[in-house]
């Protein structure tokens, strides 16, 4: 009895002298990624003994998304969560303006490629981000393409129908219909956009859009078009000269090439009017529902910690994601890392050359679904590029005018 009294007394004194704030952080980082995140969060807690972070792995992105939807509906979301832009647009009102809680120098340090405002508000910071780069077989293409013209010429020279059945067996490049981000990259490189800047007009089928579509359609004739990951085909020993894929797929692609016993290298994308390349991956945002100001402030401290130069560099080195701040990119540690890892240099150069993010329109997911449909038609040659782009534009038009 007496021992219990002492324990209670110690607990009581401890809580008086040490007002702890507990925040929850939901994420979808599995395996080594999750371990790195847990390591950083532990380091944060060591530096801030007054903050307890309840780090919860919620499964894959789709599981995290569904749990967040349910938690927001129940009014019980976590303090902090990883989220894609199109999830964020579903619960804008439930999130906190980050610029009210993060020091200006932290926000200003984020690379301009990641600048994004939702209805004029800053509510996310980039976290685990990747970017499209070009993977190529140096044995087939010794000098990787730097322009659209080169890309088409070099890849189409490889495409072959070896058994004469009228269907290609060796491919110049490869595309996945579920991945319209590649089309958006071509579109942006041609100077086009899905919508006008004020979102009132659909511009995807203007001259630039058509140029991008025609380029993609020409490439598609030399390409492997399949819904499965390109690394699956490489692993099976299928010949693909060069293809565009996310930097996050680096390990998968390299392992596939190793299995097939072929060399594989990576370079920045070929450019056209600019060197744009689409960024993918999640951001961090803070929920205000069911959270006190003290919790919000603690979560903001954690974000600032994760965006600190040393932590960003460590995160990028251990996970393969791109570094998201200026100081991290310029840091001695990252510069040395790039010297030793050409792949890190490629994705950093690509990011600085023309990284761009998702359209933050509230109906982007519906638009993306249309993009997938028409991207597939374009790749499979079901109609002329002009017909396809006009039909796509008409559907987007009716969608946003609803």
């Amino acid at each position: 009895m007496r021992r219990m009294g002492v324990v209670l007394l110690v607990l009581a004194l401890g809580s008086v002298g040490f007002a702890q704030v507990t925040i929850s952080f939901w994420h979808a980082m599995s395996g080594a990624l999750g371990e790195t995140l847990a390591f950083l969060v532990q380091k944060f807690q060591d530096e801030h003994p007054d903050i307890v972070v309840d780090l919860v792995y919620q499964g894959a992105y789709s599981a995290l998304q569904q749990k967040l939807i349910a938690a927001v509906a129940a009014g019980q979301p976590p303090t902090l969560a990883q989220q894609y832009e199109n999830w964020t647009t579903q619960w804008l009102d439930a999130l906190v303006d980050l610029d009210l809680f993060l020091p200006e120098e932290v926000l200003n340090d984020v690379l301009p490629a990641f600048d994004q405002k939702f209805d004029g508000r800053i509510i996310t910071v980039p976290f685990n981000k990747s970017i499209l780069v070009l993977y190529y077989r140096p044995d087939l293409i010794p000098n990787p393409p730097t322009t659209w013209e080169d890309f088409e010429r070099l890849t189409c020279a490889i495409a072959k129908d070896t058994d004469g059945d009228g269907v290609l067996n060796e491919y110049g490049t490869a595309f996945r219909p579920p991945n319209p981000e590649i089309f958006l990259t071509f579109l942006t490189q041609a100077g086009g956009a899905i919508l006008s800047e004020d979102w009132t007009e659909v511009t995807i089928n203007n001259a630039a859009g058509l140029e991008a579509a025609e380029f993609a359609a020409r490439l598609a004739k030399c390409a492997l078009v399949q819904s499965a990951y390109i690394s699956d085909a490489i692993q099976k020993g299928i010949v693909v000269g060069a293809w565009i894929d996310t930097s996050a797929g680096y390990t998968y692609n390299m392992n596939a090439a190793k299995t097939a016993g072929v060399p594989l290298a990576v370079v920045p994308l070929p450019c056209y009017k600019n060197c744009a390349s689409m960024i993918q991956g999640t951001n961090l945002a803070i929920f205000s529902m069911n959270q006190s100001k003290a919790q919000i402030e603690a979560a903001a401290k954690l974000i600032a910690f994760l965006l600190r130069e040393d932590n960003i560099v460590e995160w990028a080195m251990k996970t393969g994601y791109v570094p998201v701040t200026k100081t991290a990119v310029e840091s001695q540690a990252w510069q040395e890392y790039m010297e030793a890892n050409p792949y890190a240099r490629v994705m950093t150069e690509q990011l600085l050359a023309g990284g761009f993010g998702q359209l933050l329109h509230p109906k982007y997911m519906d638009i993306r679904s249309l993009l997938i449909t028409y991207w597939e038609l374009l790749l499979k040659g079901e109609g002329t590029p002009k017909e396809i782009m006009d039909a796509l534009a008409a559907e987007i038009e009716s969608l946003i005018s609803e």
Partner: protein
Amino acid sequence: MRIPAHLRSKRFWGETLEAYLFLLPILLVLGVFTFYPFVNAFVYSLYDIRTRTVPGPVVYTLTEGIETWTAQLARGRLPEDLVEVLERAGASRESLWVRLRQTTRWVLKDDENQQEYIVVKEGDALLVYRATTQWALSPVGWDNFRTAFRDPDFPKALFITLKYVGISVPVTLALALLIATVLNQALVGRAFFRLAHFLPYITPIVAITMVWRWIYDRDVGLLNYIFSSVAKAFGANVSLLTWLDDPQLALPALIIMNVWRFVGYQALILLAGMQGIDREYYEAARVDGAGGLQVWRRITLPLLTPQIFFLLIISLIGSFKIFEEVFVLFMGPGPQKAGLTIVYYVFTKAFDSGHYGLASAASVILFAIIFALSLFQLTVVQRRVHYER
């Protein structure tokens, strides 16, 4: 009024109570995970649902000097007058903070009282409301149903699902009948075949689909290997089929996989039915000189109708709800959406684009179709079922 005798007996009420106590756990589970969501889907189908800060009663209206307030709110600060107004409304000064700023809309929170306030610029005035940020339902009547039918994907999903059900249900049943008939003969190793046929049914669906992804693979798949080997044996050169990337082949791929998956289970049920048929009928038929096929058509089949009827209802309902197979097999709705089924449509509308009302409306339509078909079966089809007496 006289109360019937059995209702007056204590024993009757005791037993009834006992029965309900035994039912309670499953009723609770069904209630939470089936009936509650089921009813909610109906409700949600009539609403537009989104998370937003909803204004409640007005606390204060400011008509003059609104610029001083907006300038401070824009910097995330609280104007002293506003704090006083909110204090009078019951807020706690120390626990008030700004969490959201837009050009005409600001949201404040009072931690101590767990209350939000929203300041909205309306015309030349600033209105202060009590507010809550919530999963808000706004009634839209039948709009979600109209949207579903205007969306070209929904009729497409409806058509694909009907086609899938229309082919896979009868094909599975016919094959199952054939297998059951064969197994019903005195066969060496019957127990083994029974088990072998039942295995696909008890194997997790995702595992099955992953295996079929490999079977359907264009370059290293078993199916194409068999096809090309047979073709080569006959001296023909065929190009490999892209089962998972060809819109013409996607639905057949889905059907083949599911026929394989369910045929064993259905055959087993039919086999059990066949073995339950009284031997006397067969003996009588044989005495009358009936042949094998005649016996099967005139005796086995009619007396098997209760099992066939049961399988028809179960597989019809199950087939309409096909989803996981599409999700895993195509990692999407399939080539040119050739595998877009109704449940897949519901899934993408809810979880990809956040149209919960529309997704609910689509699921209500699916329910109506299944309900109508089941009703038709229970009234019209069941008349042709022979129950052995």
